[in-house]
């Protein structure tokens, strides 16, 4: 446990140093360039691109979580049960549309920039959160439901004190999966002029500069790993009651 925390902190520190002073790493990327190309992307600061990238992913994941969890709660209440098939279909459609197609379709309506990217990530990220929230809420055993009613909890108290806390680890796993998918998918937002780390990668591809491609991809990869392990640690914290069973 302690070791994994150290590794995570070390990775975070290394990424921080690279984003703050990319020029210190010139020697590392120079071998990937040809004919005296620049080794470090300088059109926009890598730090700004990273922060924008993270902000877009965070906003899309947050909006997706609110909608997907809200929907999952709604369709698991007696009054909303009949909407379950419809919600499943909607979430599945969101996942079926490739984000590139959503971008292409959204640009005429929303214009270029961040908005179509947010929409694509939001739609694409709904399904894992929704399905996990459903699974988490469904995993609460009939005895526990019965006990919660029997002790005199109201419907709201049962949801907040029993169902959601028990579903939380599973819900968090869904959010984690969604965030990781979005982390990679956000790079294509740069095709419609959203400011993400995809910009570096695209610049590299257009100019056949492998150093730029590597920089963008490495930063995105490092972010994905850091976010994944951090969210995983939070999940573990909330499911600690499941540990050391007899």
């Amino acid at each position, binding site marked *: 446990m302690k070791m994994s925390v150290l590794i995570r902190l070390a990775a975070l520190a290394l990424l921080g140093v690279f984003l703050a002073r990319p020029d210190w790493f010139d020697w590392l990327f120079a071998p990937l360039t040809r004919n005296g190309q620049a080794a470090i992307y300088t059109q926009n600061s890598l730090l700004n691109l990273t922060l924008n990238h993270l902000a877009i992913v965070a906003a899309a994941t947050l909006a997706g979580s609110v909608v997907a969890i809200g929907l999952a709660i709604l369709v698991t209440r007696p009054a909303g049960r009949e909407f379950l098939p419809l919600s499943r279909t909607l979430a599945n459609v969101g996942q079926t549309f490739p984000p590139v197609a959503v971008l292409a379709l959204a640009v005429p309506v929303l214009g270029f920039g961040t908005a179509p990217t947010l929409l694509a990530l939001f739609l694409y990220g709904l399904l894992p959160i929704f399905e996990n929230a459903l699974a988490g809420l469904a995993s609460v055993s009939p*005895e526990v439901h019965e006990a919660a009613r029997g002790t005199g909890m109201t419907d709201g108290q049962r949801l907040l004190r029993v169902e959601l806390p028990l579903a939380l680890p599973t819900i968090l796993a869904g959010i984690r999966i969604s965030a990781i998918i979005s982390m990679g998918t956000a790079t294509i937002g740069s095709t419609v002029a959203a400011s993400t780390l995809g910009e570096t990668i695209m610049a590299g591809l257009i100019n056949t500069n492998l150093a730029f491609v590597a920089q963008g991809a490495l930063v995105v990869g490092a972010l994905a790993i850091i976010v994944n392990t951090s969210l995983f640690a939070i999940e573990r914290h909330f499911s600690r009651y499941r540990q050391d069973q007899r």
Partner: protein
Amino acid sequence: MIEIEHLSKLFDETCVVDDVSMTIPDGALVVIVGTSGSGKTTLLRMINRLVEPSSGRILIDGRDTSTIPAHELRRQIGYAIQGHGLFPHRTVGQNIATVPNLLRWDADRVKARVDELLALFQLDPAEFRDRYPSQLSGGQQQRVGVARALAAAPKLLLMDEPFGALDPIIRARAQEDLRQIQRRLGTTIVLVTHDMNEAIHLGDRIAVMDRAKLLQYDTPQEIVTRPATDFVGELLGTGERPFRLLSLQPVRPFIEPGEATGAAIGEGASLRDALEEALWSGRTAVPVHDIAGKPLGRVTLATAIRQAARPQ
């Protein structure tokens, strides 16, 4: 006092509880016994309105339960179920504190009550308070389940097959504990079981249900000696009736002066224990000792056999 008046429940045209009326006196331990599908659990669940009656009514201390919001009613009634139903994400202490917290007791009072109940159920508060249910044995989980049901000191406790998931040895102990705790707290208990042994062993009164109807509601003695229908007789097991009757009679009134050799039985034993002891060791009488081991006299095999006969 709980008065159940002409209570019925229909699920889609099927009658699961049919016109049941019974009165449960304060401080009694009433066991509802029946086969699965007899409606016994539905009857129990209508008392705290986990199931709403189709017709009829229930009065608790003269108050019609349908006039109280269901969640408030349930906070006044303890409820323990088979497989305990403990909240897995909450510690033992938090589980027991569920109803006091819903009733907004202050924190000190809740903590004192949790420790008091843990001690009552022979679980060291310091050791068990902060454990999760998954870290307990089956018997411990069951005790915590009952402790949670008793946390807000309800006058009435409902139990649905509370010992069903326990192995026989732990079950016998849990039944004994329940009896003692009930005598100590004076709680009225309504307990559902399919096990006639458990019913006779625990109940002050037994309600026998079959196919939605209440067949007989009486003391264990009456149920054993005068079963109202053939079905009640069948539940009792015809071959075991004399022994069940003996198990309901303590030895104390049958102690006669005199000597007997061999191992003694305690004064709290039943005539069934005396019979078993006499038969097994081939004696015609067994000595009876009090708790301190002082001889009180003897019980003869002839007395036990005489008391095993059906009263006329």
